[in-house]
């Protein structure tokens, strides 16, 4: 527990720790790393039958990475159900992703047995939730002075500026307010002048115009005396470029780390996922921009075309649940990334995976409803702010956030630059919604997860026909159907042969399967008989569809028909011949 209000200037956004934490959790503030752990323990204590709390690893700085499994043991063991995996905050600064996870856990558990839909959802799947992946990052984002962008990476030493020294030039909180803001200096030769419409902003001077300001960049000093300010902070190893699928070394992909899974947490989570082969759906929450991303992450990879309609169905529904979010293809509509998490889960774990980029900043409005929304450039790094939009955001700050998101410029005496001013957007701004918008954000994001979770396969087995066609010879037709969007295995996994397909097995003490295979036309009795071992059929049950099999069986007595799937559970039917 951090027993203090960390940022007096924006106290509304920190948890009031004088009051004990209670379940259901509150979402009118952000949780520190320690509070997330406390919340998880409290939830587990409150719902011991429906949850398991697992310590799956420790970070570079020895912080605990916790996973909570939600499962109703009365409806089966976790591994016998489709697995829905949700995580957040893999980037240390993207904290509201952790709140989304907490909210998801909270709403599922606190409504179990009360709300019919949620009860059904909880009963049908096993849920694996890791609210904070980058535990060191979350800790330091709260504890240290930061910009809204900083403290993204892992606490692994890396000589970013390649000068032979490691992590020697962090940002410096010169005015001691807990934020790394911007520095500017009065300069008649500067390239900026005060914005006539809002004196807090600056605009570029036109050719020939007299300048007023030079922007000195991030708050800080040149700690290592190399002429550059804040160029070698923590890491930089990006936890979302460190995964073992299509990984590329750091000269190709900044932040990749020296080798795949060099990050402690990444390695621990990969191990966890391999041990939970039932995981079929993945949601990884980030901020920001309002995007629902699917793979592939580079143009050289390929997604199996048969999986795309599944993604589209889930993604497009997600767009409606999360208004203002765009469903996009990661490499094409954003930018290419090597070694990211969801490429790993798509291709190695065999899940349908989404990245939720939370919080479209355009939700910070100060205008009438009807007005046309300003267009994004579609790229996060390069989406320039533009003064018109900044003016509106400042108004939003003034009249809806009561000034908490922006620090007005204040004079400061800098050891190198002399008299300067420090000011600008604070760390708990821009990428993070003001707490009054947090509840809406976490509810809608959790609803998108619940929608996807509702679409995990529900396989039904039906004996279509059981007829005697000769002496002790029977024809058996079995149908496996699924009225949900997600198939029992992704097409990508089938093509990549990552793990065996689902199996339909016919067995019995006094019988022998003479022939068996996929029934391709039920009316004309077309069957692709399997040459060997006809009693075991390898198959996939599609989403919103069915697949039929026919067996010719010699003998009599009890016959067991068994469907086993890594990700869609097991079904057994026994019939008499």
């Amino acid at each position, binding site marked *: 527990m951090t027993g203090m209000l960390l940022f007096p200037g924006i106290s509304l956004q920190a948890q009031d720790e004088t009051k004990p934490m209670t379940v259901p959790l509150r979402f009118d503030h952000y949780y520190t790393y320690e509070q997330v752990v406390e919340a998880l323990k409290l939830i587990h204590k409150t719902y011991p039958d429906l949850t398991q709390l697992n310590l799956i690893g420790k970070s570079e700085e020895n912080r605990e990475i916790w996973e909570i499994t939600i499962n109703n043991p009365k409806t089966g063991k976790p591994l016998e159900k489709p697995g829905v995996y949700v995580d957040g905050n893999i980037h240390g600064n993207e904290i509201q992703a952790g709140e989304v996870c907490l909210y998801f856990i909270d709403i599922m558990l606190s409504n179990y047995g009360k709300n019919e839909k949620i009860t059904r959802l909880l009963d049908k799947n096993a849920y694996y939730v890791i609210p904070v992946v980058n535990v060191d990052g979350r800790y330091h984002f709260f504890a240290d002075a930061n910009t809204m*962008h900083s403290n993204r990476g892992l606490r692994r030493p890396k*000589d970013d500026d*390649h*000068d*032979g*020294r490691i992590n020697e030039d962090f940002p410096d909180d010169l005015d001691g307010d807990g934020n790394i803001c*911007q520095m500017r200096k009065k300069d008649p030769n500067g390239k900026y002048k005060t914005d006539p419409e809002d004196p807090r902003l600056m605009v570029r001077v036109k050719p020939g115009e007299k300048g007023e300001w030079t*922007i000195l*960049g991030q708050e800080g000093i040149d700690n*290592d*005396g*190399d002429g*550059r*300010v*804040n*160029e070698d902070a923590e890491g930089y190893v990006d936890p979302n470029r460190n*995964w*073992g*699928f*299509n*990984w*590329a*070394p*750091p*000269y*190709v*992909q*900044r932040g990749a780390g*020296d*080798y*795949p*899974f*060099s990050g402690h947490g990444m390695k621990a989570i990969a191990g966890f996922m*391999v041990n939970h082969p039932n995981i079929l759906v993945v949601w990884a929450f980030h901020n920001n921009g309002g995007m629902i991303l699917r793979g592939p992450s580079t*143009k*050289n990879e390929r997604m199996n075309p048969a999986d795309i309609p599944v993604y589209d169905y889930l993604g497009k529904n997600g767009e409606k649940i999360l208004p203002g979010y765009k469903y996009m293809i990661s*490499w094409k509509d954003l*930018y*290419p*990334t*090597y070694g990211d998490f969801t490429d790993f889960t798509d*291709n*190695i774990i065999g899940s349908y995976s989404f990245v939720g980029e939370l919080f479209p900043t355009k939700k910070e409005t100060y205008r009438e409803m009807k007005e046309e929304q300003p267009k994004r450039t*579609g*790229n996060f*790094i*390069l989406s*320039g702010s533009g003064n018109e939009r900044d003016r509106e955001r400042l108004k939003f700050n003034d009249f809806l956030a009561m000034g908490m998101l922006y620090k007005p410029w204040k004079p400061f005496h800098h050891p190198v630059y002399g008299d300067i001013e420090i000011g600008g957007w604070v760390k708990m701004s821009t990428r993070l919604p003001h707490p009054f918008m947090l509840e809406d954000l976490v509810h809608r994001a959790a609803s998108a997860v619940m929608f996807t979770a509702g679409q995990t396969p529900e396989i039904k087995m039906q004996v279509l026909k059981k007829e005697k066609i000769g002496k002790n010879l029977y024809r058996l037709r079995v149908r496996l159907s699924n009225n949900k969007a997600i198939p029992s295995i992704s097409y990508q996994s089938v093509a*990549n*042969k*990552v*793990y*065996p*397909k689902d*199996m339909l*097995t016919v067995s019995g003490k006094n019988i022998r399967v003479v022939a068996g295979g996929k029934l391709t036309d039920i009316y004309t009795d077309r069957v692709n008989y399997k040459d*060997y*071992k006809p009693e*075991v059929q*390898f198959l996939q049950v599609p989403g919103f569809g069915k697949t039929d099999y026919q067996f010719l069986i010699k003998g009599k007595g009890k016959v067991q028909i068994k469907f086993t799937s890594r990700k869609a559970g097991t079904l057994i039917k026994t019939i008499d011949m």
Partner: protein
Amino acid sequence: MKYFFTLSRWGLLCLLVFPGMIVRGQPAIKKYLTPDEINSRILDMARENTERAKVITMAKTPGGRSLQMLEIGKDLKAGKKNPAVLVVANPEGDVPLSDLAVLYLAGYILDHQETLKDLNWYIIAGLNPDAEMHFFQKPLYRDQRNGKPHNDDMDDQVDEDGFNDLNGDGIITQMRVKDPAGVWLPVDGDQRLLRKADPVKGEKGMYKLYTEGLDDDGDGLYNEDGPGGTDVGINFPHLFRAHTAAGGLWPGSSGEAYALMKFVSEHPEIAMTMVYGSTNFCLVPPKKGRKGSVDMNRIKVPKDMAKMIGADPDKTYTMKELIELVQPMVPSGMEITESDIAGFLGLGAIVNPLDEDLKYYKELSDRYKDYLKEKGMNKERLDPAPAKDGSVELWSYYHVGVPTFSMDFWTLPKPEKKKKKKSGLTAEQIGKMSKDDFLALDNDTLTVFLKEAGAPAQFGAEQIKGMVRAGQLTPEKIVTMLKQMPRKKETGQGDPKMQALVVFSDKYLEGKGFVNWQPVKHPIFGDVEIGGAVPYADNTPPPRMIDSLLSAQVPWIFTLTGKLARLGISDTRVTPKGGGVYELNIWIENKGYLPFPTAMGKKNRHVPPAVVQLKGQVDFLEGRDWTPVQSLGGKAVKKLSWLIRADKSTILDVTLESPNAWGDRKQIKIGGVL
């Protein structure tokens, strides 16, 4: 039970050992050793040399064996960190000789103080001990996978259909089965060997070929899911291929490969890698010519990206130009680097060795050939294997960025080719000849030509000449006739490696390198024949050859370590500028032959920079007390300059430090000589 290629047999052969060059204190290596035996030898070495050697356990294999590294250094106990050489043996686990090379090397180092002067050694004898065990087990078969269970055929069972020793000879060879749909034919001249029938030449196959075994799981496939999982030797990240049968789930998914990557990442003092296995970068430089490398000076920007950053999609840009284009568009304080651009545009990794590095590889390969000639080891042999995608060698060169060499020590000798006489004539040339020119051809040449052209045997040179003389034929007509002749079938010779194997086996192994085909009753196929190459016969020489092979080739590594980049301060100068201001010049040099770092190391920025540090009471007017040096060519000198203000009596302490390229230290008195 007849044809054993087993150790006991080799053991007998050991009686005939040729002592070769025996290392002081180290007995000659006379037999192949199991991973456990190697590990215990290594432990012994460490125990006998506690000041200079220690054993680090890096990982446990899925088969329960421990993966050990021997560290050797002069001041190991004192914890002094010298630049170091990493030696990795047998990453694919199927080259027993390479483990012994490591033992030989370690023994040699411990016996030769000069190899430890200011260099440390990290030596892994056998990166893949699970796979290494196959050589010592019965039945004998070769498999590069570690002991991790894996469902190769993606059915309902794991590791359920491995080989079966059907003829009980302790060796897994092949089964040939007569089959109308067969594609294999015996090779003319050696019925033991098989080659693929060529339907284009109208040939029809006779046999189907299988590995020796049963369909244990009844799925119609033979030996398709034997025990074993990941080939450690292809489990590294450069050009790693996902979703292969043996490569592992991801690069470093095997504990063995992961442990090595982690170790190397934590040891920047590693200056060079040597891999003992099946490739030989000492002899054959890394391969070029792979498609996919991006020319960093001619980068095209895709349309939508171009629009975003204001570039022209029809133009090409240099990396520098792109950085300049993007830099103003990002938030202040964020520095755009090459890797940002490479990542943003999805340029991908470098896949061909850089030319600047290849120059050195080629030169060193020539020197190595000279060296081998001196040692009498220059007999023609089959080529070493090319490095595989995902191999240790490629990872070390491309990702670690240090000079990376490899050695394979032995392949089968190239069989001497019977020289065929050639006529040097073509049908076209004959067709254009005058009658007199044709008659002037000597009979031998004409005979060879007629044979080449496929003329019927009864038409001899003299007979044809007679017909030409008599005017029954003209040279032109001869050619027309020859063109109508049915072409004589060219008979295939089969796999040259197999040819080499049978020749070697017959000559040096009393035929024990190849199991002759013998009829066996197979439960499914009925009559089959079992036979073929004995596993390892093509890469594992008889034990009597071990010592001479290793003693000749292993020491080349010391020539290579002598060529490593070695940084030093070659000169200093202080020039007074007046008013207590001085210009300070320091010349730093690379006394080594190899550049610091390799061109690839410069590109991937994995090798830490060298740093010049100045300590003393001075004000820096230009330059600073900490100066990173990113690169310095082989034998090159670089001048560094500072402008300082200091008292005359000041003594400056200058250090040049690099974790993997040594360094230097000097003192400078500002006012003159110390």
